[in-house]
C-alpha cells in the first residue's frame, strides 16, 4: 500500500494518490511533464513536501535509507558504482537472471560490457533483493525488445501477486493496458485519471 498526500515538488503537485496492495498504477504524460520528478519525490531523492506512507509507516518517521528499501525506485537509466555486476548485489548467487532472459553467468560480467537492456533488467533484480513494498518504475522496458518486455512483465506480476504496489511510468499504452489497474495522465503538474483501461 502507498498513500500520497499533498505531495509537491517544483512544478508538480499537490498530488494525492492511494495505491492498494498489489495494485498497479500507470502514469503517462508528455516528456518534461515531470513523471520522473514525481517518482524521485516519492522515493525522497529530491527535496519535496507532503506526506507519504506505506503499511510500514509514514515516510517522515523512517530513516531515508530504510524508506528507499521499502519504496524502491528504478530510474530510466541505472547507475553502477563498481566494476563487476556481482559487486552490485548482496547475494549475487541467488539473483534469478534467467527469469529475465539474462545468462546466469551475468554476475561475472563487467558492467561496461552490458547492453542498456541488460543494465535495466539487472538493476531491477538488484532492487528486488530488498523485497520492497512499493515499486516505482520509470520506463522500465524502454530499452527492451518485445520478448524481454513480456518476461519483465511476467516477473513484475510475481511481485504484484505478493502484494507489492506499483507505479509505472510508461509511453507504451499497450503495456499500460496489459498490466495497470488504473491509468493516470500527468499534465500541468496534476494527476488526472484517464478512462479505465
Amino acid at each position, binding site marked *: 500500500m502507498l498513500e500520497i498526500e499533498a505531495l509537491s515538488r517544483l512544478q508538480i503537485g499537490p498530488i494525492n494518490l492511494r495505491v492498494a496492495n498489489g495494485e498497479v498504477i500507470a502514469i503517462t504524460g508528455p516528456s518534461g511533464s515531470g513523471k520522473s520528478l514525481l517518482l524521485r519525490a516519492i*522515493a*525522497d*531523492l*529530491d*527535496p519535496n513536501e507532503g506526506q507519504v506512507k506505506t503499511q510500514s509507516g509514514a515516510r517522515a518517521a523512517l*530513516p*531515508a*535509507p*530504510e524508506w*528507499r*528499501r521499502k519504496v*524502491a*525506485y528504478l*530510474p530510466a*537509466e*541505472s*547507475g*553502477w*558504482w563498481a566494476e563487476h555486476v556481482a559487486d*552490485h548485489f548482496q547475494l549475487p548467487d541467488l539473483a534469478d537472471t534467467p527469469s529475465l532472459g539474462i545468462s546466469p553467468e551475468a554476475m561475472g560480467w563487467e558492467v561496461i560490457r552490458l547492453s542498456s537492456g541488460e543494465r535495466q533488467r539487472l*538493476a531491477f533484480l*538488484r*532492487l528486488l*533483493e*530488498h523485497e520492497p513494498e512499493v515499486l516505482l518504475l520509470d520506463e522500465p522496458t524502454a530499452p527492451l525488445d518485445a520478448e524481454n518486455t513480456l518476461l519483465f512483465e511476467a516477473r513484475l506480476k510475481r511481485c504484484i501477486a505478493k502484494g507489492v504496489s506499483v507505479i509505472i511510468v510508461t509511453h507504451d499504452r499497450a503495456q499500460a493496458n496489459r498490466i495497470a489497474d488504473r491509468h493516470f495522465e500527468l499534465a500541468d503538474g496534476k494527476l488526472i485519471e484517464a478512462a479505465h483501461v
Partner: protein
Amino acid sequence: MSEYVQLSYFDIALASVFLLLNGVLSLWLRLGIARSLAFAMVRMVVQLLLVGMLLKSLFAIQSPWLTLLVALFMASFAAREIWARQERRLKGWRGLAIGGSAMAASVGMVALVALIVLVQPAPWWSPRYALPLLGMIMGNAMTGISLSLDTLHTALNREQRAIEAQLILGANKWRAMRPFLRQAMRAGMMPSINGMAAVGVVSLPGMMTGQILSGVDPNEAVKYQLLVMFLIAGATGLAVVLATLGSAKALSDDRDRLRLDRLRKHR
C-alpha cells in the same frame, strides 16, 4: 651568520637579464607570452618589495594585534583563492566558508603549537617567526584544500547516477559518497606526500637554500626544514579531511539525498 654576502639592487637587476632574454625570445618566436611574462615579473617585484617593507616595519613595531591583523589578511586571501580554484563551487556563503574555516582551524592549530611549544620565540607571537611559518603552512594547506574540493565536486557531479543508485538501494549518504571522499582526500594530500619523497634528492627547498645562502649551518637549516615540512604535511592533511567532510555534508542532507543543486559551475 658571518659569511652572509649582501646583495645590491644592481645584482638583482643583473639577475633579471636572463628573464628579459626570455621575453625577447618570446617576441621573436611569437610565443605570445611576452606580455604575461612582463606583467608577472613586474607584479612579483612590486609585491616582494612591498612585503619586504611591510615585514621590516612589522618586526620593528612588534605589535601582537598588528601581527594578528596581517595573519587574518593572509587567511582571507587564501580562503578566496581556495574558492576561486574550484571549477564547481558550493553556492552562497558555504562556498567560501567551508574551505576557509577548514584551513583556518588546521593551520591555526598547527601554527600555534609550533610557536608556543616548538620554536618558542620570545614573545611567542613574534612576527619574525609567526608570519613566515604561517605563510608556508597556509600556502600548502590552501593548495591541498582547493585540490580536494575541486576533485570532490567534479566527482560527485559526474557520478550522480552511481551515487544515487546506492542511495536507492538503501545506502546512507556517507557510504554512497565514500569512494569520492577518499579520492578527494588523496588528491589534496598528494602534493605533500610527493614533496616529502622528493625533498633533498630532487629538490632543495627554497627555505632551506635561503638559510644556507645566508650563512646558516646546513644541519641547522635541515632541522628547520624538517620542522616546517612536518607542520605543512600535518596541517594540510587535517585541512583536507575537514574541508572534504564539510563539503560532502553540505552537498547532501539529513534525508540522505545528494544535493547537487547546491553546486554551481564556473568558467
